[in-house]
């Protein structure tokens, strides 16, 4: 590649995309294990009577479901001007499902903050117990970040293919 803009070689779009998908999986694992860490510490090395119960699990379950829904959608369906064989355009279906996914994910993050505030901050617990709530918020944020990274890196590829096609 002789006619490149910068003096140092930039990674190609496919390499960036591969790296993005790998790091998305890593971020997802980090989020899951942050939460599982809270649950396992609550079971094995707990300093107080407060435990991680099913209420703490609900936000993470919502976030994971939202991530599955968001990333299962075929991205080509989202644009309204895409040509559709079935007469009317089906973009609204994809947008509805995408909205459901984002609502699940935002609900998960908001729910984790809610659990942190209502279960741990308002009763005034100190830090070893407060960690359960903080880990919940961190886990949900990491799952959301992982979704964003996966989404962005999958859209990289579309652009790349588009450039190839032209």
């Amino acid at each position, binding site marked *: 590649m002789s006619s490149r803009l910068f003096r140092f070689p930039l990674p190609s779009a496919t390499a960036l995309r591969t790296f993005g998908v790998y*790091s998305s*999986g890593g971020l997802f694992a*980090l989020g899951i294990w942050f939460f599982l860490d809270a649950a*396992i510490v609550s079971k*094995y090395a707990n300093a107080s009577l407060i435990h991680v119960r099913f209420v703490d699990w609900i936000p993470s379950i919502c976030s994971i479901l939202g991530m599955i829904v968001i990333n299962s959608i075929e991205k080509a369906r989202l644009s309204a001007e895409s040509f559709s064989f079935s007469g009317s355009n089906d973009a609204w279906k994809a947008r509805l499902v995408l909205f459901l996914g984002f609502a699940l994910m935002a609900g998960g993050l908001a729910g984790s903050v809610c659990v942190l505030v209502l279960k741990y901050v308002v009763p005034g617990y100190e830090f070893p117990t407060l960690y359960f709530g903080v880990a919940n918020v961190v886990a949900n944020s990491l799952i959301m970040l992982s979704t964003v990274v996966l989404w962005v890196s999958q859209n990289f590829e579309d652009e790349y293919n588009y450039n190839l096609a032209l």
Partner: protein
Amino acid sequence: MPHAGLKTIIALSFVLAIGFLLVILSSALYGQYSPLLVVATYLFAPLPNAICSRYASSYNDDFMDSGSSASGVLDLGRFLTGFLVTMGIALPAVLAHADVIQWGAMAMSIIGGLLIYGTIIAFTMFFQEESDF
């Protein structure tokens, strides 16, 4: 690709043996055998990638439908591989934080696991030419 000779195989097997030694020591020294799970994690880590890339290549053989479905399958494999690699680091940390294993056992099992996974990666990098097609 660098040329893979006999020395490479010997060095890789030494590194693999050191990795297994560290993981087994981290379990046996403290009498708590849960760090052995790290070995299973790292052995399973390249598996989704391999399965999905093979599936995607067979999927693309007929040029009828070379859409984004195959790339979705590839992405799933990469996602799971990244998940498993991070899990191999996170699992001993979680066990150590929960006082199931000691912190020294955590350090040894993480380093040993990374050595094992690095060996697998280096082996596939060196010998991909011969095994492909």
